[in-house]
């Protein structure tokens, strides 16, 4: 839509990882629509504030519904959308600042509820839109405009956090590996419960980590990312923790709970058991 919209004046920087994430999201939703014979109108993309959230405006081809809300609150908004209409496919697009810093408080409740939405988190280790300040995933000691003498906080390990908070599907992707990422997002959307696809999505302007992630033989840099080994058992939380203790960033499905009943299902089961009273009976209970 926005390619043809001269009024929309936002641009991602050349080489931004978010381009790849956008492509992967578009393809994953497309695949899902074909596989499940769903119309595009069945998907709602709830966007946070930051560079990442602009995916909703830059989306190519047939448009899903979008809600571009306020900073840090895309999860609670998605909660309302999904539970208002559990038939919708609800995807959250967010960044490391939006999701893990200001919005961090919302991850645990959604995990405990096993809300059936998919969060695609674009991690560039920096606040891009406000020009390069440190984020929860910025490394200790890094100099940024708000840490002029080096960052004082250790960097967060988001994948460990998700496991610990009880997220029932945790995947790790890389914006440059679009095909694999498409597959991860698709699996996340199919997972019956709360799924987080955490994506390394470099910021070419403020935190260019491409060399670090992919490796650069000329500069003598080894790649940080590596595929999750085939021997990994994603249904084992212990195996997932062990995997995350190894060097580098594993790409693939880190953890997927076997028996995962989502909130909408739990809610329906509970409601069927509940002894409901219609409004006339409710009012009669107050009758003098």
């Amino acid at each position, binding site marked *: *839509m*926005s390619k043809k*919209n001269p*009024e*929309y*004046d*936002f641009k991602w920087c050349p080489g931004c990882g978010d381009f790849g994430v956008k492509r992967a999201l578009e393809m994953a939703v497309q695949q899902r629509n074909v596989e499940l014979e769903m119309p*595009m*109108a*069945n998907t*709602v993309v*709830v966007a946070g504030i930051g560079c990442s959230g*602009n995916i*909703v*405006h830059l989306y190519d081809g*047939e*448009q*899903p*519904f*979008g*809600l*571009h*809300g*306020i900073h840090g*609150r895309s999860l*609670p*908004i*998605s*909660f*309302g*959308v*999904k*539970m*208002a*209409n559990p*038939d*919708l496919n609800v995807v959250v697009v967010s960044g490391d600042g939006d999701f893990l810093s200001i919005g961090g*408080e*919302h991850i*645990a*409740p959604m995990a405990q509820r096993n809300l059936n939405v998919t969060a695609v988190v674009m991690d560039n280790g920096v606040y891009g839109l406000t020009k390069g300040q440190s984020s929860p995933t910025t490394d200790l000691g890094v100099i940024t405009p708000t840490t002029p003498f080096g960052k004082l906080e250790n960097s967060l390990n988001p994948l460990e956090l998700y496991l610990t908070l009880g997220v029932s599907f945790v995947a790790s992707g890389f914006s440059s590996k679009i095909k694999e990422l498409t597959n991860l997002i698709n699996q996340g959307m199919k997972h019956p419960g709360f799924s987080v696809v955490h994506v390394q999505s470099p910021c070419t302007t403020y935190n260019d980590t491409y060399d670090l992630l992919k490796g650069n033989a000329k500069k003598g840099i080894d790649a940080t990312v590596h595929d999750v080994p085939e021997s990994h058992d994603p249904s084992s939380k212990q195996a997932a923790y062990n995997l995350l203790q190894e060097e580098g960033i594993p790409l693939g499905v880190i953890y997927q709970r076997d028996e995962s009943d989502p909130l909408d299902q739990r*809610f329906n089961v509970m*409601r069927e058991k*509940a002894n*409901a*009273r*219609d*409004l*006339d009976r*409710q*009012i009669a209970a*107050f*009758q*003098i």
Partner: protein
Amino acid sequence: MRNTDFVVRFAGEGGGGLVTSAELLAQVTSQVGYHVKTFVTFPSQIMGGPTFAQARISTSPVLSYGDQLDVLVALDREAYNTHQSEVRDGGVIIYNAEDFQLEEDEKSFGMRIDELAKSTGNPRAANMVMLGAIAYLVNMPEHYLPEYVTKRFSRGRPGDEEIIKGNIMALSLGAEEAKKSGFSLGALEDPTPPSGEQLLIKGNDALAIGAIAAGLDVFVGYPISPATTVLVYMERNLTGPGKFVYQASSEIESINAILGAGFAGKKSMTSTAGPGLSLMSEGIGLAWMAEIPTVIIDVQRGGPATGLPTKVEQSDLLVAIHPAHGDVSIPVIAVGTVEECFTGAALALNWAERYQGPVIILSDHGLSEQAQNIPKPDLSKVIVENRKVYTGNNGYERYDGVDVSPMPVPGGPGAYIANGSEHDPIGDTTHLPNRHVDMTHRRFNKLDLLKDDNYERENQDESIAIMTWGGSKGPTREAYDIMMGENQKIGWYYTMQLNPLPPQLLEELKSKELVLIPELNYLGQFAMLLRAKGVNAESITQYTGTPFKVGDLVTRIKDRIASHKKGLVNV
């Protein structure tokens, strides 16, 4: 002359059955056709702490909680010390003789309440002992209470008979003690039963039922005094296909969840109090900006920050109209009676659907806990409005024009981006100056849809008028009626619709020499707003955490009018 009105207060440590006793008295008397209103106040803690609960019983509709007490039941010395000055001349104090002793005086008698209860074999019958004594003092026909007890405890359970027997014995033990004391309040007028079926219901329950009657689909809330019971009611009763109710992890989650549900096509609501409203600020701005229907109930309490969680104040009006940063003017409906809790909640949902944005209901602690008899609402007369839904093709411009436009629903046609950033007609972010101007106009224009001319007015030819708002309606009306009985020249105005105000009402108010606004806050918030609109409004304020007393209002209104007139003469 027979008594037509009496007020009984139970005071002591919270958790001692005080609230139950006041509510029982209200139930018993409302069942035989009296009008009733209860009032409860307690500290913000689980159990204990100084609490009181009272019931006012009358042969005519009850407007206020009652300025003076006819009977005080003081369960401990602190309660006696705190409340005894409020007992009227000729009133009676029953004190708990197991807890403390008083010197002989002409008002009080001691009763060993727990001991008497234990002697019936049911130590939990203490409130029956108290009620028995009160019934004797006010000369209630002897059969009311035993009949009520028999009906209430005939539940078809083993042991019912035992409980009934014990309770009736407790009632007569209390009555005997009262008789021995020699006190009596004189003969009681028979009830004049209100016509039509009645409910005995509290404000928060009436809010919940009003919302359900207007088609509420989704409710998400977070526990906070004094709004919690709305959430509790919804958890139990908002049921059926497509309905969803949930306890959120914070008010920030609540507001964002209900606006998500509103976006998804549902009628949604939350309830909170001041601190929660503060946390919801940004989300309310998003609902205004992205044009999403949703309703927020603010059951006001006292003070900023944690303030007075369980006291009565009306100090959230300014923040309700302007809860968010930037240019917003949130529609506000302030309910003033338990009946208005029902109608106001339904109206709020209709307003949200009609103008497609957030609506705030202001209630207060007094209304939330107060049980009152109201006519049973006729559900067939509840007006239910639904938003205009877009049914065309894709390629729709959701935010086109300056008027409210059909809203696409996810799953259906017209996919768009509901955007909290300034946006163009399809919902894409834009910073063009003209767009911001046009979209700001669009958002404010839609408020015209809410300018229903619904308001009360009496003696509109008078140049001085009273206009209160919210829960101060009852005491102010009672004060007004007293002054009308004295042939004072004052007009009466009232509306639930504080923003936007009914246009005709505003015009009338502007033509007045003086409009007096009784309101429970320090700033005189409603008077400030009216003055900004060109009304010569002056507030009569109180910020004690307690409701207005009618007698105080009469004095203060008369004083204010007198000094106004004096000022005019001097000029």
